């Protein structure tokens, strides 16, 4: 059987790769992709803990479920914002949008 820690290591690698993308990328969409990675890794963790530690319960699974839904919502809004920014600023570079007003 697969040891739990393997799952966790995979998810943590995914998480930190996401963090790297969040920190280092300048394209807003790339940043958003990184955020998706982070969320995804968190969802994996929820499921894994649920399955291995409390197999009789369903909380972890449900949290993953909700997490997926929330990330869908968040992505939708974020992309709406990004498109709007693109419309206003002409690009989607993080460096140019450090001010909320313009």
């Amino acid at each position: 059987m697969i040891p739990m820690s393997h799952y966790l290591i995979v998810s943590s690698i995914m998480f930190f790769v996401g963090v790297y993308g969040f920190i280092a990328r300048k394209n807003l969409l790339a940043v958003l992709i990184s955020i998706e990675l982070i969320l995804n890794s968190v969802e994996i963790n929820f499921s894994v803990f649920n399955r291995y530690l409390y197999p009789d319960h369903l909380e972890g699974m449900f949290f993953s479920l909700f997490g997926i839904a929330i990330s869908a919502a968040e992505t939708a809004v974020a992309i709406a914002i990004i498109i709007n920014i693109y419309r206003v600023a002409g690009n989607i570079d993080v460096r140019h949008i450090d001010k909320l007003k313009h």
Partner: protein
Amino acid sequence: MEWLRFNDTLHIDLGILLDPLSVMMLTVVGVVALMVVVFSIGYMKGERGFGRYFGLLGLFVFSMLGLVVATNIFQMYIFWELVGASSYLLIGFYYTRPAAVKASQKAFIVTRFADLGFLIGILILSSYTGTFDFAALTADNAAIAVGPQANWAMALIFMGAAGKSAMFPLHIWLPDAMEGPTPVSALIHAATMVVAGVYLIARMFPVFQFAAPDVLVLITYVGAFTALFAAVIAITQTDIKRVLAFSTISQIAYMMVALGVADVAASTFHLFTHAFFKALLFLGAGAVIHAVHSNEMSRMGGLRKFMPITHITFLIACLSISGIPPFSGFFSKDEILVAAFHHNPVVFGVLLLVAGLTAFYMFRLYFRIFWGAHHYDRPPHEAPPIMTIPLIVLAVLTCVTGFVVPVHIDWAIASAGVVAAVIGIVVAWRFYAKPSDAPARLAARWAGFGQAASHRFYIDEAWLWVTRRIIFGGISRPVAWFDRHIVDGAMNAIGSGTVRVSETIEPVQGGKVQSYAILFVLSVLLITLLVFVLC
């Protein structure tokens, strides 16, 4: 009546003390004040601030009487200060004249400085004796309780008295105080306020005698020196009021010497007689100034024809101050000379010399005003009766007060004094009664000395240097600079330091989400690490 209680033992009372000394002073203050007020009605007529003048005069007389009847040293200090303040206001009466303003400030600050000594003296004295009361202080056994601090206390109290009575080196304010209206000078700066110092020491005399005899020696020498010093300066002055001012200093110094040689009676007697003839001199000078509209001797001369009453009264006063019998000055001066002779021959010699000098400069003044050539655009006229009546009254008093107190006259010493005075008068007559080049020749021979004397031996300049250079330049300016730059600078540095620190750490919160993320993740990691390493 208890006015203010400090603690269980010390409290200020306000009361009235009547004893021969205070009654004598009351007489002097009352009479002179009355004469001066009457005289002023004529003198000040038409002046701006007529009402203010008499208001301030009233304030002064109130304070002076309060001082005289004080039952305790603190009450005296209170009125002492009030007298100083009303003197300040009266000297500065012509407040639009910068010289008057300067003079009033000088008078107040110099006496204030002296009063500081007075105050500290009171504090020392009271903390050892536990009382302010004159009666308790001067009781025979009280002085013993004082101890070794008594010398300090009494010396400081003498400093206060010296300030008020214009003893060297605190005399500088008095000549300048002549900027005030002349009747004011007569009242305050000749007859009453300036002798307050003498009065104070006479009041406290038992304490001096029993607890601090050394201070009496100090008083003697300071007095003798001041007498000589002021007399020498008086010879060279050309402003008649200045001459009278220095003469006042010299005469008060006489009284101080009398106190120093432990003859309170002689001192107060001289105070008594001096008050009248000096007031008379000042009022006479006032009448002259009123007629000629100038203080300078060179603008006067031959006035005896125009102002006969003033002339006669002035002459009486001059004779009296010179110590010619039978005028009052003769008796009181003689008393002092006798006391000094028995005490210390050197002091006696100085006083005798001063007596001669006094006669000389008084008659120099007299001859230059009332004799000699005259040239006036408009002939001066005699003062109105409201001004001459006080002169006459004072002149009469000058003639009779010498006989009020029965004195035993030591004729040997008295004749020495009279001879000195006569020599002085004769010399003055030779020099000034008719045109003569003797003064000029003498002045040329003693040029340096005369120069120094007419500049009052540069004492003013020395004080000015002290105040300008040391107090303003040496202390205040550095203090102000220090405050603005060092203390305030330190406070501002704390402020700007804070701003700088926040500017340095500002980019951390620079609105860049990614930077926040780095910081956030690293911090979480650090905390995780700490938690797991430590657990």
